């Protein structure tokens, strides 16, 4: 009786957490890919440690239902869906691993497409476990106890990966930026780019041009420039209109992004598409710094449905009554940058061509989870 009561209160508690997460993400109290990814994975950790299941499919359905709910709270924060799919893939993998090790025909059940990553990594980590029950044991009952710690451990690793992602990307900076090179960056709200530049500045001397992406990130641009300048990097803030004229002198364009789509296209701050086009014309390389949690298995069939439209008040002063009444203002927060405009994506797993992104998608997500 007592245990049942405790269970109910626990479930209630969990539900409250989920509700609060949904409300916060709707209110944009959790905003930005990194924060959303971190919050989602922490929520999932909580859900999984409380979850009870008799069959692994049950767990998968549970998580899928939850995922759908979280995703629909703010469909344009793709990172939320990405993390859920990552966790789903993790669960499936764990269950299959256990299954394989028992039935011994892992070769058949393992994914037909093995990418080059799996060539390098070994599966020994969660390999055969003599104490684990098989997925279908003699009584027909399925396992539940053994998988849970592995899944939780997997999510913990995911969180650790999220936390260290900027570091691992930043460590590649030295290979990317030459001495005395001029770098242009139009995404000053990106933590990844900031760390990338700061870390590289310890070894290299270079100049950064920060584009003031009006209207949404103007203040952040100035903070960003200040931080760079404090670290001893020669920093200039330029307006959006100057990009074309200055592009001839730029060595590389370094972008942060909100999301990377399966075709290698990006959703980056509004204005980025134009700057990338401009870089293409000047044959200036465009480099994107992104953590893998931003990689989404979605294809940009309907670009509009992926682009968030923000606060109109940033574009036009609300005080101006006569204008407010007469004009229709739209303030998209993101731009879709087609994969052709991007030369290289630097992820925490190394640098890849945007054309190769679909392989990373296959490695990290399961096809059956693409639609939650």
């Amino acid at each position, binding site marked *: 009786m007592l245990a049942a009561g405790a269970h109910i209160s626990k479930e209630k508690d969990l539900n409250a957490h989920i*509700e609060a997460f949904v409300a916060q993400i709707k*209110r944009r109290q959790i905003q930005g890919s990194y924060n959303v990814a971190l919050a989602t994975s922490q929520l999932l950790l909580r859900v999984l440690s409380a979850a009870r299941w008799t069959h692994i499919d049950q767990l998968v359905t549970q998580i899928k239902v939850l995922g759908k709910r979280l995703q629909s709270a703010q469909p344009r924060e793709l990172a939320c869906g990405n993390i859920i799919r990552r966790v789903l893939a993790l669960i499936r993998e764990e269950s299959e691993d256990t299954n394989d090790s028992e039935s011994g025909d892992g070769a058949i059940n393992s994914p037909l497409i093995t990418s080059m990553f799996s060539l390098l990594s070994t599966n020994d980590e969660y390999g055969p476990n003599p104490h684990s029950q098989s997925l279908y044991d003699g009584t027909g009952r399925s396992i539940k106890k053994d998988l849970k710690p592995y899944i939780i451990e997997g999510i913990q690793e995911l969180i650790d990966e999220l936390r260290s992602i900027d570091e691992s990307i930043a460590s590649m900076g030295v290979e990317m930026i030459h001495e005395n090179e001029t770098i242009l960056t139009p995404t000053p709200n990106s933590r990844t780019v900031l760390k990338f530049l700061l870390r590289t500045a310890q070894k290299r001397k270079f100049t950064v041009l920060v584009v003031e992406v009006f209207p949404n990130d103007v203040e952040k641009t100035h903070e960003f420039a200040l931080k760079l300048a404090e670290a001893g990097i020669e920093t200039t803030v330029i307006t959006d209109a100057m990009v074309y004229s200055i592009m001839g002198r730029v060595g590389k364009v370094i972008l942060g992004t909100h999301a990377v789509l399966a075709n290698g296209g990006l959703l980056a701050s509004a204005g980025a598409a134009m700057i990338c086009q401009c870089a293409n014309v000047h044959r200036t390389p465009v480099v994107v710094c992104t953590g893998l949690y931003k990689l989404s298995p979605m294809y940009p069939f309907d670009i509009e449905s992926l682009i968030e439209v923000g606060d109109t008040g940033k574009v036009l002063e*609300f*005080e101006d009554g006569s204008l407010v*009444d007469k004009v229709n203002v739209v303030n998209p927060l993101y731009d879709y940058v087609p994969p052709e405009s991007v030369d290289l994506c630097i992820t925490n797993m190394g640098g890849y061509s945007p054309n190769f992104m679909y392989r990373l998608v296959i490695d990290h997500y399961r096809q059956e989870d693409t639609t939650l």
Partner: protein
Amino acid sequence: MGPKKGGQAGGNKTKVGKQTAQQNAAPEETDQEERLQAIVLSDSYQTRFQPLTLETPRCLLPLCNTPLLEYTFEFLALAGVSEVIVVCCAHADQIQEYIANSRWSNFSSPFTIETVLSPESVSVGDAMRDLDAKGLITSDFLLVSGDIVCNVPFDKVLTDHRQRRAKDKNAIMTMVLREASPFHRTRARAESAIFVLDEQTNQCVHYEEIKTRKHMKQISLDPEIFNKHTDLAIRNDFIDCHIDICSPDVPALFTENFDYNHIRKDFVHGILTSDLLGKTIFAHIVTDNYAARVRSLQTYDAVSKDVISRWTYPITPDSNLLADQTFQYQRGHIYKEDGIVLARSCRINSCTVVGAGTAVDDGTVITGSVIGRRCKIGKNVSIRSAYIWDDVTIEDDAIIESAIIANGAVIGASSHVAPGAIVSYNVKIDSNIIVDGNKRLTKYLGEENKNVDTDAVGEDGDGYVYEDASEAEEDDDYEEIVNSSGLVYNMASLNASDTSFSTVSADQPHRKSRRRRISTASNNTVASEDSDEDSFLREAQASVERAVAENHDLDIAALELSTLRMAKNAQFHEVRAATIAALIGRISHLINSNTLKARAAVESVLNRWGPLFRRQVFDQADQIDFLLLIQRDCTRRMQGSSILLHAINCLYDQDILDEEAILKWWYQDPQRKEDADMVKVGELVPRWLQWLTTAEEESDSE
């Protein structure tokens, strides 16, 4: 009745819990610092949204398919409020039921929510006094009405306020003001004000309501202001949506000053012009985010447009505030829910919201409008800037422009609803009818029995034209007079041309701003042995008699009465009884001393003092009670029957009594002929009634 009772019980229970919490929290100052209470006044104490608000409270009217109250709660959640107290007055049961079923009373809600009934309050002042009496307020609190839309991040406002409070205990209030040009669409035309602010500290040193009708050309400032403050800004470019952070002193001050009703006109103005109190009020000026209040039909229109065009981001339709909403954003500020059936040839133009389950047929064009759920819209219909709520049926070839069509209404084929019209709940309009822009149609009957107005809604229609009864019924004259006819809304929709401006503010008679008075000395005369009721009757009667004898100002007499009422916690019934006793006594005295004939005596007294009853008699039940009291009183007088007759006639002329109440009193109320005296005193009335009915028939046949 059921939910109401339940709610009350619940409210009491939580109150008990709160009191203990209060005791616990009292020693820890720091704990109080972090908790923020919010008082939501769910009633607006206005009638501008009638006839819509006859059936639904204003805060539950849908704005872009979401009840207004949701926007307020969303703002409070953003502001980090931890405890919300909703003060309910009109339609309290509906509000309580809504809150009980909403996600805000869920365990995952960011704040605890509690509803408090204050059924007798007729103004913000009354509600505040009620709150003070209940002792619910423990620390600085946020005072908002239930109809605001706001996305201002509140931590800065709050820290500023707390710093000021820490420095000076007298800084009792911070008003949040949004900058906006004087003719901004989101500003309520009828209510604008001049704020005189200290440029450095943002202290508000003077507040003056703009009386547009009187073409106010000057305001007077106390010269001392210039001695105290070096830089003054006199500004008229704010949207004042009545979001205030108040200290617990504020409700106490309301209690001290019985005549404060309006939070700005009376309270702020009063505090600032008073030398005695030494309290200060500050303004927090917001330049970046959005803050507005739906206070009239015109602002309903404007705020809807603002929400649709995402000035209120992230509070937009596609953030789906209600759990069952599924809005998605499309280019050009079009929001569609799942499960909409759109014919191939219909056109949904920009700035439109369409709710789930709605079907739009061929050739229909919808521009800049909000369509609710489960609406059926026929072929070749044209809808422009209209607000159509749930379950509305619009038949083929109808035209709807800038109107509000409430739930369940039916608009017949080829009908035309002109800009500014309001079609209230379940009204049915026949085919080929033109609904004029100033018409408000309703089906809500209340206590009245009106026939279907076939001129307005057609042969097969259902509903009648709503007449703005606010002038006759509304007690709170100075609050209410702002004309709530379709005009304002009309102007708003025509607002595209700036030239129409000068006429916008017409029709807004304002009461002279009343000077604040400290409560009168009459409290001192309380004879404590008496039961409160008796002593109240005696004192109130004496007070009115004194006022009549010494020919006081009407305002003063009213104020004295309300002071007494508050002090003794008396009902309006007793106030009426006392006033009637005093006035009829006076009339009878005039007659008996042969100064005047009955008719002249009644007229001289009631024409002068009749308006007192305006603040005592509110609805039909009150009127009937009032009539019975007069009748009862007249039985004691000589020539009672003719006093009664003339009094009724006189009060009817003054619109204090309406004919339905009189007829009901005469024909239906059993108490009227309780005993022989009562019957006898009423012997002259039938003749007058006959006159009344014939007069009405004549006016009808015109």
